[in-house]
Protein backbone atom coordinates (compact mmCIF):
# COMPACT_ATOMS: atom_id res chain seq x y z
CA UNK A 1 0.00 0.00 0.00
CA UNK A 2 2.75 2.36 1.02
CA UNK A 3 4.57 1.74 -2.23
CA UNK A 4 1.51 2.64 -4.26
CA UNK A 5 1.16 5.94 -2.41
CA UNK A 6 4.86 6.60 -2.99
CA UNK A 7 4.38 5.91 -6.70
CA UNK A 8 1.37 8.25 -6.87
CA UNK A 9 3.36 10.91 -5.04
CA UNK A 10 6.18 10.62 -7.56
CA UNK A 11 3.77 10.81 -10.49
CA UNK A 12 1.99 13.88 -9.15
CA UNK A 13 5.30 15.47 -8.18
CA UNK A 14 6.82 14.94 -11.62
CA UNK A 15 3.67 16.18 -13.37
CA UNK A 16 3.35 19.31 -11.26
CA UNK A 17 7.11 19.92 -11.24
CA UNK A 18 7.55 19.70 -14.99
CA UNK A 19 4.49 21.79 -15.82
CA UNK A 20 5.50 24.41 -13.25
CA UNK A 21 9.03 24.54 -14.64
CA UNK A 22 7.62 24.83 -18.15
CA UNK A 23 5.39 27.74 -17.11
CA UNK A 24 8.22 29.38 -15.17
CA UNK A 25 10.36 29.17 -18.29
CA UNK A 26 8.15 31.85 -19.86
CA UNK A 27 9.62 34.29 -17.35
CA UNK A 28 13.12 32.81 -17.43
CA UNK A 29 13.27 32.98 -21.21
CA UNK A 30 12.06 36.57 -21.42
CA UNK A 31 14.43 37.67 -18.68
CA UNK A 32 17.47 35.85 -20.03
CA UNK A 33 16.84 37.01 -23.60
CA UNK A 34 16.72 40.53 -22.22
CA UNK A 35 19.97 40.02 -20.31
CA UNK A 36 21.72 38.79 -23.43
CA UNK A 37 20.35 41.65 -25.50
CA UNK A 38 21.33 44.28 -22.91
CA UNK A 39 17.70 45.03 -22.07
CA UNK A 40 15.86 44.82 -18.75
CA UNK A 41 13.08 42.41 -19.65
CA UNK A 42 9.91 42.10 -17.58
CA UNK A 43 10.35 44.16 -14.42
CA UNK A 44 6.96 45.76 -13.72
CA UNK A 45 4.83 42.98 -12.23
CA UNK A 46 6.11 42.24 -8.75
CA UNK A 47 9.76 42.28 -7.63
CA UNK A 48 11.99 41.77 -10.71
CA UNK A 49 8.80 41.04 -12.64
CA UNK A 50 8.47 37.48 -11.32
CA UNK A 51 4.67 37.66 -11.33
CA UNK A 52 4.82 38.15 -15.10
CA UNK A 53 4.15 34.42 -15.43
CA UNK A 54 0.92 34.80 -13.46
CA UNK A 55 -0.13 37.78 -15.53
CA UNK A 56 0.63 35.89 -18.74
CA UNK A 57 -1.29 32.84 -17.58
CA UNK A 58 -4.31 34.87 -16.49
CA UNK A 59 -4.26 36.63 -19.83
CA UNK A 60 -4.06 33.43 -21.84
CA UNK A 61 -6.86 31.80 -19.83
CA UNK A 62 -9.22 34.68 -20.44
CA UNK A 63 -8.52 35.01 -24.15
CA UNK A 64 -11.30 34.07 -26.48
CA UNK A 65 -10.80 30.50 -27.66
CA UNK A 66 -11.70 31.14 -31.27
CA UNK A 67 -12.10 28.30 -33.75
CA UNK A 68 -12.20 29.72 -37.29
CA UNK A 69 -15.15 28.47 -39.38
CA UNK A 70 -12.95 27.12 -42.18
CA UNK A 71 -10.85 24.70 -40.12
CA UNK A 72 -11.10 20.93 -39.84
CA UNK A 73 -12.60 21.14 -36.38
CA UNK A 74 -11.83 17.75 -34.82
CA UNK A 75 -8.17 17.69 -35.84
CA UNK A 76 -7.83 21.36 -35.02
CA UNK A 77 -8.81 20.63 -31.41
CA UNK A 78 -6.84 17.40 -31.07
CA UNK A 79 -3.55 18.72 -32.51
CA UNK A 80 -2.37 20.86 -29.55
CA UNK A 81 -3.03 18.09 -27.06
CA UNK A 82 -0.71 15.66 -28.82
CA UNK A 83 2.47 17.60 -28.02
CA UNK A 84 1.56 18.01 -24.35
CA UNK A 85 0.60 14.35 -23.99
CA UNK A 86 3.57 12.88 -25.82
CA UNK A 87 6.11 14.99 -23.96
CA UNK A 88 4.50 14.43 -20.56
CA UNK A 89 4.52 10.68 -21.37
CA UNK A 90 8.25 10.90 -22.10
CA UNK A 91 8.85 12.29 -18.63
CA UNK A 92 7.71 8.91 -17.28
CA UNK A 93 11.08 7.35 -18.03
CA UNK A 94 13.28 10.24 -16.79
CA UNK A 95 15.12 9.29 -13.60
CA UNK A 96 15.47 12.55 -11.65
CA UNK A 97 17.30 10.88 -8.77
CA UNK A 98 17.77 7.29 -7.57
CA UNK A 99 14.23 6.02 -6.99
CA UNK A 100 12.46 9.11 -8.32
CA UNK A 101 11.29 7.71 -11.63
CA UNK A 102 7.76 6.87 -12.70
CA UNK A 103 8.48 3.89 -14.95
CA UNK A 104 11.98 2.42 -14.95
CA UNK A 105 11.48 0.71 -18.32
CA UNK A 106 14.22 -1.52 -19.70
CA UNK A 107 13.65 0.16 -23.08
CA UNK A 108 13.44 3.67 -21.61
CA UNK A 109 15.50 5.33 -24.31
CA UNK A 110 13.43 3.77 -27.11
CA UNK A 111 10.28 4.95 -25.35
CA UNK A 112 11.67 8.48 -25.29
CA UNK A 113 12.52 8.36 -29.00
CA UNK A 114 9.08 7.00 -29.88
CA UNK A 115 7.19 9.56 -27.79
CA UNK A 116 9.22 12.55 -28.91
CA UNK A 117 8.65 11.57 -32.55
CA UNK A 118 4.90 11.54 -31.94
CA UNK A 119 5.20 15.22 -31.02
CA UNK A 120 5.83 16.01 -34.68
CA UNK A 121 2.22 15.01 -35.46
CA UNK A 122 1.13 18.14 -33.62
CA UNK A 123 2.80 20.35 -36.17
CA UNK A 124 1.75 18.41 -39.26
CA UNK A 125 -1.85 18.06 -38.08
CA UNK A 126 -2.16 21.63 -36.83
CA UNK A 127 -0.72 22.94 -40.10
CA UNK A 128 -3.13 20.80 -42.12
CA UNK A 129 -6.25 21.39 -40.02
CA UNK A 130 -5.84 25.16 -39.96
CA UNK A 131 -6.68 25.27 -43.68
CA UNK A 132 -4.44 28.27 -44.16
CA UNK A 133 -1.56 28.65 -46.59
CA UNK A 134 0.98 29.82 -44.04
CA UNK A 135 0.00 27.11 -41.58
CA UNK A 136 0.29 24.48 -44.30
CA UNK A 137 3.74 25.76 -45.26
CA UNK A 138 4.73 25.53 -41.59
CA UNK A 139 3.38 22.01 -41.37
CA UNK A 140 5.26 21.01 -44.51
CA UNK A 141 8.45 22.42 -43.13
CA UNK A 142 7.77 20.52 -39.90
CA UNK A 143 7.52 17.30 -41.90
CA UNK A 144 10.69 18.12 -43.87
CA UNK A 145 12.51 18.87 -40.63
CA UNK A 146 11.23 15.64 -39.09
CA UNK A 147 12.70 13.39 -41.76
CA UNK A 148 16.04 15.19 -41.58
CA UNK A 149 16.69 15.09 -37.84
CA UNK A 150 14.90 11.93 -36.68
CA UNK A 151 17.38 9.82 -38.64
CA UNK A 152 20.49 10.94 -36.85
CA UNK A 153 18.75 11.61 -33.54
CA UNK A 154 18.32 7.90 -32.83
CA UNK A 155 21.74 7.03 -34.24
CA UNK A 156 23.49 9.69 -32.16
CA UNK A 157 22.33 7.90 -29.00
CA UNK A 158 23.44 4.47 -30.16
CA UNK A 159 27.03 5.18 -29.15
CA UNK A 160 25.88 5.58 -25.55
CA UNK A 161 23.75 2.47 -25.76
CA UNK A 162 26.67 0.44 -27.15
CA UNK A 163 28.91 1.57 -24.29
CA UNK A 164 26.33 0.79 -21.60
CA UNK A 165 24.79 -2.25 -23.22
CA UNK A 166 21.31 -1.23 -22.05
CA UNK A 167 18.40 1.01 -22.98
CA UNK A 168 17.51 1.52 -19.31
CA UNK A 169 17.95 5.14 -18.18
CA UNK A 170 19.06 4.24 -14.64
CA UNK A 171 21.68 1.86 -16.02
CA UNK A 172 22.92 4.60 -18.34
CA UNK A 173 23.39 7.01 -15.44
CA UNK A 174 25.07 4.39 -13.26
CA UNK A 175 27.48 3.52 -16.07
CA UNK A 176 28.81 7.12 -15.94
CA UNK A 177 30.23 6.84 -12.40
CA UNK A 178 33.78 6.76 -13.76
CA UNK A 179 33.47 9.28 -16.56
CA UNK A 180 30.61 11.26 -18.10
CA UNK A 181 29.76 10.10 -21.59
CA UNK A 182 30.34 13.60 -22.95
CA UNK A 183 34.06 12.76 -23.18
CA UNK A 184 34.07 9.43 -25.06
CA UNK A 185 30.85 10.27 -26.92
CA UNK A 186 31.53 13.91 -27.79
CA UNK A 187 30.34 13.52 -31.39
CA UNK A 188 27.21 11.82 -30.12
CA UNK A 189 26.65 14.70 -27.69
CA UNK A 190 26.97 17.40 -30.34
CA UNK A 191 24.74 15.60 -32.82
CA UNK A 192 22.12 14.83 -30.16
CA UNK A 193 22.18 18.47 -29.04
CA UNK A 194 21.50 19.63 -32.61
CA UNK A 195 18.79 16.98 -33.04
CA UNK A 196 17.30 18.04 -29.71
CA UNK A 197 17.04 21.65 -30.83
CA UNK A 198 15.38 20.53 -34.04
CA UNK A 199 13.10 18.17 -32.11
CA UNK A 200 11.77 20.92 -29.85
CA UNK A 201 11.45 23.28 -32.85
CA UNK A 202 13.41 25.98 -31.11
CA UNK A 203 15.48 28.66 -32.74
CA UNK A 204 17.64 28.34 -34.81
CA UNK A 205 15.53 25.39 -36.08
CA UNK A 206 12.04 26.83 -35.58
CA UNK A 207 11.27 26.47 -39.27
CA UNK A 208 7.63 25.33 -38.81
CA UNK A 209 6.94 28.45 -36.77
CA UNK A 210 9.31 31.07 -38.26
CA UNK A 211 7.37 34.11 -37.15
CA UNK A 212 9.31 36.45 -39.43
CA UNK A 213 8.16 34.78 -42.64
CA UNK A 214 5.14 32.52 -41.89
CA UNK A 215 3.41 34.76 -39.27
CA UNK A 216 3.36 31.95 -36.70
CA UNK A 217 3.53 28.97 -39.03
CA UNK A 218 1.49 26.01 -37.93
CA UNK A 219 -0.23 27.79 -35.03
CA UNK A 220 -1.24 30.97 -36.85
CA UNK A 221 -4.93 30.19 -36.39
CA UNK A 222 -4.71 29.18 -32.76
CA UNK A 223 -5.63 31.39 -29.84
CA UNK A 224 -6.38 31.18 -26.15
CA UNK A 225 -5.51 28.02 -24.29
CA UNK A 226 -4.93 26.00 -27.47
CA UNK A 227 -2.09 28.35 -28.30
CA UNK A 228 -1.04 28.06 -24.66
CA UNK A 229 -0.77 24.29 -25.10
CA UNK A 230 1.67 24.74 -27.99
CA UNK A 231 3.59 27.21 -25.90
CA UNK A 232 3.80 25.08 -22.78
CA UNK A 233 4.46 22.04 -24.96
CA UNK A 234 7.48 23.80 -26.44
CA UNK A 235 8.84 24.62 -23.00
CA UNK A 236 8.12 21.07 -21.81
CA UNK A 237 10.08 19.89 -24.85
CA UNK A 238 13.06 22.05 -23.86
CA UNK A 239 12.91 20.68 -20.33
CA UNK A 240 12.70 17.11 -21.63
CA UNK A 241 15.63 17.45 -24.02
CA UNK A 242 17.69 19.14 -21.29
CA UNK A 243 16.85 16.21 -18.98
CA UNK A 244 17.88 13.72 -21.65
CA UNK A 245 21.18 15.46 -22.36
CA UNK A 246 21.88 15.55 -18.63
CA UNK A 247 21.11 11.87 -18.21
CA UNK A 248 22.79 10.56 -21.33
CA UNK A 249 25.95 12.64 -21.45
CA UNK A 250 26.43 14.51 -18.15
CA UNK A 251 25.91 11.81 -15.54
CA UNK A 252 22.34 12.58 -14.52
CA UNK A 253 22.16 12.96 -10.75
CA UNK A 254 25.82 12.01 -10.20
CA UNK A 255 27.97 14.63 -8.53
CA UNK A 256 29.96 15.37 -5.35
CA UNK A 257 27.97 14.33 -2.30
CA UNK A 258 27.67 17.74 -0.59
CA UNK A 259 24.46 18.34 -2.56
CA UNK A 260 21.59 15.85 -2.86
CA UNK A 261 21.36 14.03 -6.24
CA UNK A 262 18.15 15.78 -7.30
CA UNK A 263 19.86 19.17 -6.92
CA UNK A 264 22.73 18.08 -9.15
CA UNK A 265 20.21 16.93 -11.70
CA UNK A 266 18.34 20.23 -11.62
CA UNK A 267 21.54 22.29 -11.84
CA UNK A 268 22.66 20.43 -14.96
CA UNK A 269 19.17 20.56 -16.45
CA UNK A 270 18.86 24.32 -15.97
CA UNK A 271 22.31 24.88 -17.45
CA UNK A 272 21.08 23.26 -20.66
CA UNK A 273 17.78 25.14 -20.58
CA UNK A 274 19.77 28.38 -20.36
CA UNK A 275 21.93 27.20 -23.25
CA UNK A 276 18.78 26.70 -25.30
CA UNK A 277 17.72 30.26 -24.54
CA UNK A 278 21.20 31.53 -25.41
CA UNK A 279 20.88 29.78 -28.77
CA UNK A 280 17.64 31.63 -29.38
CA UNK A 281 19.27 34.92 -28.42
CA UNK A 282 22.16 34.57 -30.82
CA UNK A 283 21.69 32.40 -33.89
CA UNK A 284 19.79 33.02 -37.11
CA UNK A 285 17.44 30.53 -38.73
CA UNK A 286 18.69 28.48 -41.71
CA UNK A 287 16.59 27.76 -44.78
CA UNK A 288 14.92 24.38 -44.55
CA UNK A 289 16.85 22.94 -47.48
CA UNK A 290 20.00 24.01 -45.63
CA UNK A 291 18.80 22.19 -42.53
CA UNK A 292 18.00 19.05 -44.54
CA UNK A 293 21.35 19.17 -46.33
CA UNK A 294 23.12 19.67 -43.01
CA UNK A 295 21.27 16.73 -41.48
CA UNK A 296 21.65 14.25 -44.31
CA UNK A 297 25.06 15.13 -45.72
CA UNK A 298 27.03 16.01 -42.59
CA UNK A 299 25.42 14.77 -39.40
CA UNK A 300 24.15 11.40 -40.63
CA UNK A 301 27.59 10.24 -41.87
CA UNK A 302 29.13 11.64 -38.68
CA UNK A 303 26.80 9.67 -36.42
CA UNK A 304 27.25 6.51 -38.50
CA UNK A 305 31.00 6.90 -38.18
CA UNK A 306 30.58 7.45 -34.42
CA UNK A 307 28.53 4.25 -34.08
CA UNK A 308 31.09 2.35 -36.16
CA UNK A 309 34.10 3.52 -34.12
CA UNK A 310 32.34 3.08 -30.77
CA UNK A 311 31.33 -0.44 -31.76
CA UNK A 312 34.85 -1.29 -32.89
CA UNK A 313 36.38 0.03 -29.64
CA UNK A 314 33.85 -1.79 -27.45
CA UNK A 315 34.38 -5.03 -29.38
CA UNK A 316 38.16 -4.82 -29.18
CA UNK A 317 37.99 -4.20 -25.43
CA UNK A 318 35.62 -7.09 -24.86
Amino acid sequence: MNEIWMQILVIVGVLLGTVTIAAGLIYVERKMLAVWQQRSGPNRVGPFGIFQVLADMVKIFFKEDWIPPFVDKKIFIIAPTIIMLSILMSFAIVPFAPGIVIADLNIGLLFFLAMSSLGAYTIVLAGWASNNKYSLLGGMRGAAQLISYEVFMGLSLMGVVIQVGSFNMTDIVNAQKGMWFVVPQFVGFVTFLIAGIAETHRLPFDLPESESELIAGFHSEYSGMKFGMFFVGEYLGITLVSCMITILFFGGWLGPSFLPPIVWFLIKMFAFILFFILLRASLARPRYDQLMGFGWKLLLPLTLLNVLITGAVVLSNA
Partner: protein
Amino acid sequence: MLSNVRTLWMVFLKMFKKKVTIQYPEKKAYLPPRWRGRIILSRDPDHNERCVACYLCAAACPVDCISLQATEDENGRRYPEFFRINFSRCIFCGLCEDACPTYAIQLTPDFEMGEYNRQNLVYEKEDLLIDGMGKYHGYSFYQQAGVAVGVKPKGGGEKEDPPVDVRTLLP
Protein backbone atom coordinates in the same frame (compact mmCIF):
# COMPACT_ATOMS: atom_id res chain seq x y z
CA MET B 1 29.91 26.24 -37.80
CA LEU B 2 32.79 27.83 -35.93
CA SER B 3 31.39 31.31 -36.47
CA ASN B 4 28.16 30.15 -34.82
CA VAL B 5 30.09 29.11 -31.73
CA ARG B 6 31.85 32.48 -31.76
CA THR B 7 28.47 34.23 -31.99
CA LEU B 8 27.19 32.23 -29.03
CA TRP B 9 30.20 33.21 -26.95
CA MET B 10 29.96 36.90 -27.87
CA VAL B 11 26.26 37.02 -27.06
CA PHE B 12 26.97 35.26 -23.76
CA LEU B 13 29.50 37.97 -22.87
CA LYS B 14 26.77 40.60 -23.32
CA MET B 15 25.49 39.35 -19.94
CA PHE B 16 28.21 41.35 -18.20
CA LYS B 17 27.64 44.59 -20.09
CA LYS B 18 25.60 47.52 -18.88
CA LYS B 19 21.95 47.61 -19.92
CA VAL B 20 21.07 50.20 -22.53
CA THR B 21 17.43 50.55 -21.53
CA ILE B 22 16.40 53.73 -19.71
CA GLN B 23 13.52 52.94 -17.32
CA TYR B 24 11.46 55.78 -18.73
CA PRO B 25 8.85 57.01 -16.28
CA GLU B 26 11.33 56.81 -13.40
CA LYS B 27 14.42 57.94 -15.29
CA LYS B 28 14.29 60.35 -18.17
CA ALA B 29 16.48 60.42 -21.21
CA TYR B 30 18.59 63.52 -21.88
CA LEU B 31 16.97 65.73 -24.50
CA PRO B 32 19.19 68.33 -26.14
CA PRO B 33 18.07 72.00 -25.80
CA ARG B 34 17.19 72.25 -29.47
CA TRP B 35 14.97 69.16 -29.33
CA ARG B 36 11.72 69.84 -31.16
CA GLY B 37 8.92 69.41 -28.65
CA ARG B 38 6.08 71.44 -27.16
CA ILE B 39 5.82 74.94 -28.71
CA ILE B 40 5.93 78.02 -26.49
CA LEU B 41 5.73 81.81 -26.96
CA SER B 42 8.53 83.70 -25.20
CA ARG B 43 8.84 87.23 -23.81
CA ASP B 44 11.60 89.79 -24.32
CA PRO B 45 13.86 91.11 -21.49
CA ASP B 46 11.33 93.86 -20.67
CA HIS B 47 8.69 91.19 -20.10
CA ASN B 48 6.68 92.17 -23.14
CA GLU B 49 5.46 89.64 -25.62
CA ARG B 50 7.98 89.07 -28.38
CA CYS B 51 5.33 88.09 -30.89
CA VAL B 52 4.54 90.84 -33.39
CA ALA B 53 1.72 88.91 -35.06
CA CYS B 54 3.36 88.91 -38.50
CA TYR B 55 1.61 85.62 -39.50
CA LEU B 56 4.89 84.16 -40.83
CA CYS B 57 4.64 81.13 -38.57
CA ALA B 58 1.07 80.45 -39.65
CA ALA B 59 2.15 80.79 -43.27
CA ALA B 60 5.13 78.50 -42.82
CA CYS B 61 3.18 75.81 -40.97
CA PRO B 62 2.77 72.86 -43.38
CA VAL B 63 -0.29 71.49 -41.55
CA ASP B 64 -1.94 74.83 -40.80
CA CYS B 65 -2.14 74.21 -37.09
CA ILE B 66 -1.34 77.81 -36.04
CA SER B 67 -3.99 80.48 -36.12
CA LEU B 68 -3.74 84.02 -34.74
CA GLN B 69 -5.24 87.47 -35.10
CA ALA B 70 -3.09 90.62 -35.07
CA THR B 71 -4.03 93.76 -33.19
CA GLU B 72 -2.27 96.92 -31.93
CA ASP B 73 -1.99 98.56 -28.55
CA GLU B 74 -2.32 102.32 -27.98
CA ASN B 75 1.34 102.93 -29.02
CA GLY B 76 0.91 101.08 -32.30
CA ARG B 77 2.79 98.01 -31.14
CA ARG B 78 1.51 94.86 -32.81
CA TYR B 79 0.63 91.79 -30.77
CA PRO B 80 -1.63 88.79 -31.31
CA GLU B 81 -5.17 89.16 -30.08
CA PHE B 82 -5.39 85.39 -29.86
CA PHE B 83 -2.80 82.79 -30.67
CA ARG B 84 -3.95 79.19 -31.03
CA ILE B 85 -1.93 76.06 -31.81
CA ASN B 86 -3.76 72.82 -32.45
CA PHE B 87 -1.29 70.22 -31.19
CA SER B 88 -3.36 67.35 -32.50
CA ARG B 89 -2.29 68.53 -35.95
CA CYS B 90 1.21 69.82 -35.17
CA ILE B 91 4.00 67.66 -36.60
CA PHE B 92 6.77 69.41 -34.64
CA CYS B 93 8.73 70.26 -37.79
CA GLY B 94 10.06 73.51 -36.36
CA LEU B 95 9.36 75.58 -39.51
CA CYS B 96 7.44 78.14 -37.43
CA GLU B 97 10.52 78.65 -35.28
CA ASP B 98 12.63 79.12 -38.41
CA ALA B 99 10.18 81.62 -39.85
CA CYS B 100 9.83 83.74 -36.72
CA PRO B 101 11.69 87.09 -37.09
CA THR B 102 11.54 87.90 -33.37
CA TYR B 103 12.46 84.58 -31.70
CA ALA B 104 8.98 84.60 -30.19
CA ILE B 105 7.83 81.09 -31.12
CA GLN B 106 10.17 78.34 -29.95
CA LEU B 107 10.17 74.57 -29.62
CA THR B 108 11.16 73.06 -26.27
CA PRO B 109 12.50 69.67 -25.15
CA ASP B 110 9.20 68.43 -23.72
CA PHE B 111 7.03 65.75 -25.27
CA GLU B 112 4.77 64.64 -22.42
CA MET B 113 1.60 66.21 -23.77
CA GLY B 114 -0.81 63.27 -23.63
CA GLU B 115 -4.46 64.16 -23.03
CA TYR B 116 -7.62 62.14 -22.51
CA ASN B 117 -9.73 64.75 -24.24
CA ARG B 118 -8.75 65.72 -27.76
CA GLN B 119 -10.03 69.26 -27.36
CA ASN B 120 -7.43 69.80 -24.62
CA LEU B 121 -4.72 69.60 -27.28
CA VAL B 122 -5.75 72.99 -28.61
CA TYR B 123 -3.48 75.43 -26.77
CA GLU B 124 -4.53 79.06 -26.39
CA LYS B 125 -2.20 82.04 -25.90
CA GLU B 126 -2.23 81.82 -22.12
CA ASP B 127 -1.16 78.15 -22.39
CA LEU B 128 1.64 79.00 -24.81
CA LEU B 129 3.09 82.16 -23.25
CA ILE B 130 5.95 81.63 -20.81
CA ASP B 131 7.50 84.17 -18.45
CA GLY B 132 11.09 83.72 -19.69
CA MET B 133 13.06 84.32 -22.84
CA GLY B 134 13.38 80.70 -23.90
CA LYS B 135 16.53 79.77 -25.79
CA TYR B 136 17.56 83.30 -26.86
CA HIS B 137 18.51 85.54 -23.95
CA GLY B 138 18.66 89.31 -24.06
CA TYR B 139 17.08 89.71 -27.50
CA SER B 140 14.40 92.33 -27.93
CA PHE B 141 13.14 92.91 -31.44
CA TYR B 142 12.00 96.51 -30.98
CA GLN B 143 15.34 97.46 -29.38
CA GLN B 144 17.18 96.43 -32.56
CA ALA B 145 15.21 98.22 -35.23
CA GLY B 146 11.78 99.13 -36.36
CA VAL B 147 9.20 101.79 -35.81
CA ALA B 148 8.77 103.75 -32.60
CA VAL B 149 6.06 102.06 -30.60
CA GLY B 150 6.84 103.37 -27.14
CA VAL B 151 9.85 101.11 -26.54
CA LYS B 152 12.52 103.46 -27.90
CA PRO B 153 12.63 106.81 -29.73
CA LYS B 154 13.04 106.87 -33.48
CA GLY B 155 16.61 105.90 -34.41
CA GLY B 156 17.40 104.93 -30.81
CA GLY B 157 17.91 101.25 -31.42
CA GLU B 158 21.08 99.37 -30.53
CA LYS B 159 22.27 99.16 -34.13
CA GLU B 160 20.57 102.27 -35.41
CA ASP B 161 22.02 105.68 -36.21
CA PRO B 162 20.08 108.74 -35.15
CA PRO B 163 17.90 110.06 -37.99
CA VAL B 164 19.62 112.34 -40.47
CA ASP B 165 18.60 116.01 -40.27
CA VAL B 166 17.62 116.63 -43.88
CA ARG B 167 17.54 120.46 -43.35
CA THR B 168 21.32 120.74 -43.07
CA LEU B 169 23.93 119.94 -45.72
CA LEU B 170 26.73 119.38 -43.23
CA PRO B 171 27.94 115.79 -43.10
